[in-house]
């Protein structure tokens, strides 16, 4: 039923409500194209209140999900404006390097010059499949491979990229290093990809303990 979901949300509220919006509020759809493609669902939504649009959202090509997540992960001490600036610089750096490379090399219209798609490519390449978590059984610590949810794997990929780029000389700026790391990862080599491979190797060597997990 179209409305049954609404009701069940209303009545089966369990646990503490942390959001300031009531639980039956629905996340907004920012992009006009998305709204057009979901015509049938919108009929149901016409009776449901919508949450307010976030202040980092817009219906433009500059608004990407992974980009925004990255900006949020770069942020330190609530300095969101600064992290947005850093992200913009990073993307600019990527674009410059790619354009330069494409002019120098002979088949130059084949190289990818879209900075954001390179970023997405890099993050996708860095996503781990499994994670090692240590579990104590009978006084012995075992490293047990555990599958990851989508969200967690995206988080780890972005965190590794950032960690790798924060490990640098003082003279090198973060955007510069991050741009290098992203370009490396997008082409399937570099430190982050190695780290990921190392992790899967460890998971493989510990696969005998896979049935130990219970978390």
């Amino acid at each position, binding site marked *: 039923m179209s*409305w049954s979901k609404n009701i069940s949300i209303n009545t089966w509220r369990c646990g503490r409500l942390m959001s300031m919006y009531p639980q039956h509020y629905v996340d907004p759809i920012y992009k006009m194209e998305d709204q057009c493609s979901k015509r049938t669902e919108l009929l149901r939504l016409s009776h449901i209140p919508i949450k*307010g649009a976030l202040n980092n959202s817009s219906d433009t090509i500059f608004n990407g999900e992974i980009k925004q997540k990255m900006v949020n992960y770069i942020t330190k001490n609530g300095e969101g404006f600064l992290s947005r600036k850093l992200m913009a610089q990073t993307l600019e750096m990527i674009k410059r390097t790619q354009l330069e490379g494409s002019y120098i090399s002979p088949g130059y219209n084949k190289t990818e010059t879209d900075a954001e798609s390179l970023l997405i490519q890099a993050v996708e390449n860095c996503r781990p499949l499994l994670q090692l978590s240590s579990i104590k059984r009978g006084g012995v610590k075992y490293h047990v491979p555990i599958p990851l949810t989508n969200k967690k794997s995206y988080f780890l990929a972005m965190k590794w990229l950032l960690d790798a780029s924060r490990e640098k000389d003082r003279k090198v700026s973060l955007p510069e290093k991050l741009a290098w790391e992203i370009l490396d990862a997008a082409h399937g080599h570099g430190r982050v990809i190695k780290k990921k491979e190392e992790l899967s190797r460890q998971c493989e060597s510990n696969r005998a303990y896979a049935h130990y997990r219970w978390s």
Partner: protein
Amino acid sequence: MALRVFGLNLVKTNRSVLQNVCKTGATPTQQTVAPYATEVTVQASPAAVQKQKVSKAMKAYLKRANEHDEFMKTQHLEFQIGKRHLANMMGADPETFTQQDIDEAIEYLFPSGLFDKKARPAMKSPDEVFPARKAAEFDETGRPFHSMFYTGNPNFFQLLHDIVQETNKIHELEERLLRRGNTPDENQKLDTTGFQLMPKDQLELLLVESIADIEYSNFVNSMERLIALPYAYKSKEFIERFLKPLMDQSKQLEIPKPRIDEQGRQYITTYECLRKTARADVTVRMPGTGKISINGQDIFYFPEEKCREQLLFPLQFSQMLGKVDIEANVEGGGPSGQSGAIRWGIAMSLRSFVDQEMIESMRLAGLLTRDYRIRERKKFGQEGARRKYTWKKR
């Protein structure tokens, strides 16, 4: 709903009459306005009085009922007197003094600055103030009228029973029609979009019984099963009793008509645009050239790109960029809050210049929702709003 039994009458009733009442109440043919209310109005002549054993429960009930009756009678009397006094004070005719007049008089005579409307002085009919009570569900010997009395919630379970009966009826009908080779009429199909099943609190009022969450979910499930049947339109009347229409969210707020300024341009001013601690007044003028002025400055009032993007979001979304002029006065808050306030003001004002479909789109994009999230306070014993101090055992 009058749900009270005239207690005194009941004692004088003889048993056979009561049983008749019980029978007629139980048959599904006699479903009128409120079939689940336990309205048992019994009129018996005093001649039929027989000395019979009256159970203890009945005695206690009768005592309570009597007290309640007396109480309600005095309340009604007091209400009438009060009404007359009020009418006299206001210089009106006491006979034609309506509830609306009473409310106005009270608001005039006892002005109250209390925020909560429930806390302000009021005078209402005692029927409204004191909730309806359930009438006796058993006769004077203690034998219950309703076959499901011992379930504790006879009305609720009767309702479930009725839903199942209705479902079975439709199943039978479907089978019969199928044998004849008929198919359900697609045009008459029951459409429940825009309707909601009766919420729990309203159902409780209707049944005069308090029901548990899980019982309500049982009701919802069985109603859904009934509605999903192909021939559900045959028992439309029954189903519609438990449906409630939903309001279209985008039509809830009235859209203001644009006014004309001295240059002959249409304009709309939205006051009190709030976000975090910022407050703004936004004026949108149509037609324009896309000029934006905030506190006398242009869009570079905001040095951050993010805030400027926010200002342009509603304009770009509704394709009005460059077609309207915007003036805004904003105070309080930081850049993010201020730009959010102005964004909301622009979106609200733009409603007058775009069509209904675009308004709905803007609502779905979350532009027309007042974002009332604010900074969460710090808690004592914690480092911040949620974060706890580091704890070390030793």
